[in-house]
């Protein structure tokens, strides 16, 4: 059984419909990449899964249970976490406070001190920064805080929305290494990325979204070799 199964998902903002039928699945422990042009609905898809945007149709099944239309609190409680596009840190709070808010779900409220220690072990860079205001950090540091904050809830599924956004190539590689390491610990990942080549190297399977619809799916290598994908997302002249 898939860990996550999204079927014919529809959602929007007010009268505007952004998703017209997104379908994809994530197996336990795998990395799935979602690619699509600007405005294709990638972020809306992730927000609809976590419950920030309320879907107007379709189903989302996580670990065998329907979660579409549920509040983010419930979805996070069940083991889904989101690293939002643009990071969405609490800029005026310290790094440590940001991580503590990440441990808000009841399931992980106990033992926050231990989780903080584990977080500093995993991301050694954060230890010395724990007392700093999150807003005062560099982009790369902020991204790591956002990832660490999401991991505080000990998710089984991590939704990552453009974690390399605005980062230098070297930092982007470091972030991708982190994604790989997190996945190796058994966390399934949905990765939305503009760095399509690198993301497809990481992922086992990939989906392509166009105008709020899933239009293509396949093994990452197959998607990588697809002529249409090459032309549209990889800028390769054929």
């Amino acid at each position, binding site marked *: 059984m898939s860990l996550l199964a999204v079927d014919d998902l529809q959602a929007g903002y007010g009268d505007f419909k952004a998703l017209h039928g997104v379908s994809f699945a994530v197996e336990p422990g795998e990395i799935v990449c979602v690619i699509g042009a600007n405005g294709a609905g990638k972020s809306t898809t992730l927000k609809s899964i*976590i419950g920030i945007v309320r879907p107007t149709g379709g189903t989302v099944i996580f670990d065998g249970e329907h979660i579409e239309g549920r509040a*983010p609190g419930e979805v996070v409680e069940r083991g889904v976490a989101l*690293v939002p596009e643009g990071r*969405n*840190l*609490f800029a*005026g709070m310290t790094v440590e406070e940001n991580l503590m*808010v990440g441990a808000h779900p009841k399931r992980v409220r106990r033992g926050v001190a231990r989780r903080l220690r584990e977080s500093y072990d995993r991301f050694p860079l954060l230890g010395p920064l724990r007392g700093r205001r999150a807003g005062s950090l560099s982009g790369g540091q902020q991204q790591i805080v956002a990832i660490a904050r999401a991991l505080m*809830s000990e998710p089984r599924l991590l939704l990552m929305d453009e974690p390399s956004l605005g980062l230098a190539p070297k930092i982007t590689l470091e972030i991708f290494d982190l994604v790989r390491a997190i996945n190796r610990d058994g966390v399934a990942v949905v990765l939305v990325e503009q760095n399509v080549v690198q993301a497809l190297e990481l992922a086992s399977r990939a989906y392509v979204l166009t105008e709020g619809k899933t239009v293509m799916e396949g093994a990452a290598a197959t998607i990588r070799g697809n002529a249409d994908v090459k032309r549209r997302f990889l800028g390769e002249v054929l």
Partner: protein
Amino acid sequence: MIALQLAINGILLGGVLALSALGFNIIFGVMRVVNLAHGDFVVLAAVLCAYAFTQFGINPLLLLPVTIVFGFVAGALVHRFLLRRLPREIASAEASSLTLTFGLSYFLAGGGLALFGGSFVSVPFLTGAYQLGPISIPQARLLAFVAALVLSVGFAILLRSTLLGRAIRATSQHLEGALACGIDVDRVRTLGFATGTAIACAAGTLVSFLFNVNAQQGVLYTVNAFAVVVIGGLGNYTGAVLGALILGLTESFSSYLLGATLAEAAPYFLFILVLLLAPAGLLGKRAA
């Protein structure tokens, strides 16, 4: 010497202004709404305390726990049964909640008038003054300052060190970030509105033995709180303390130099000045 005296008066006044503004700021933070009924809760608590003092001789400080609980419950009910029921379309949410708090302000002012009448009341409590050479420090003002300080620090510690406090701050700083962390934002808003109202009522309790009050005066205290947070930067708690000192000093000096009537214009004056020169507030960051 007179300048020093005025400065001390202003700083002592600033304590209560800062406390009141803290409540206003919390509500703005979690709701993104300017609570136009804020001052009405302040004066309602003040009038209640004045009433309790004149009728039953109850020391207003002893009523602090009562007014705080009253404010918390009243705020929670107002949010749960009124504000939360408003439509959620992004475009109209702020406008409709502004209108609602405006109506609530009239309701509270009218209710206060019906219950307690329209005359000014005061609490002749600690009317003496400490004499330090040429400087005199009114006991009531000093007490109000110390109490405001203790309460502000207390609430600030709660905001920093409790789960709810962190959730309130997280929701204020980044709504979608808070949602992504699984925070039940609706609940945080109810409790945040309740906390802000509780603080307004605590400030009102202190106001009861500082000034003559009547239930119609809420708007004055709303404007004071609004001015203080605008001076410091909306949502910025440290900035509000600075704003409160500035407003306290301005009111103290202007009422001496210009008379009490003109001094009532001080918050409006500062308000406009800050909006012209530093629209994001003295310690505020430009909104992202």
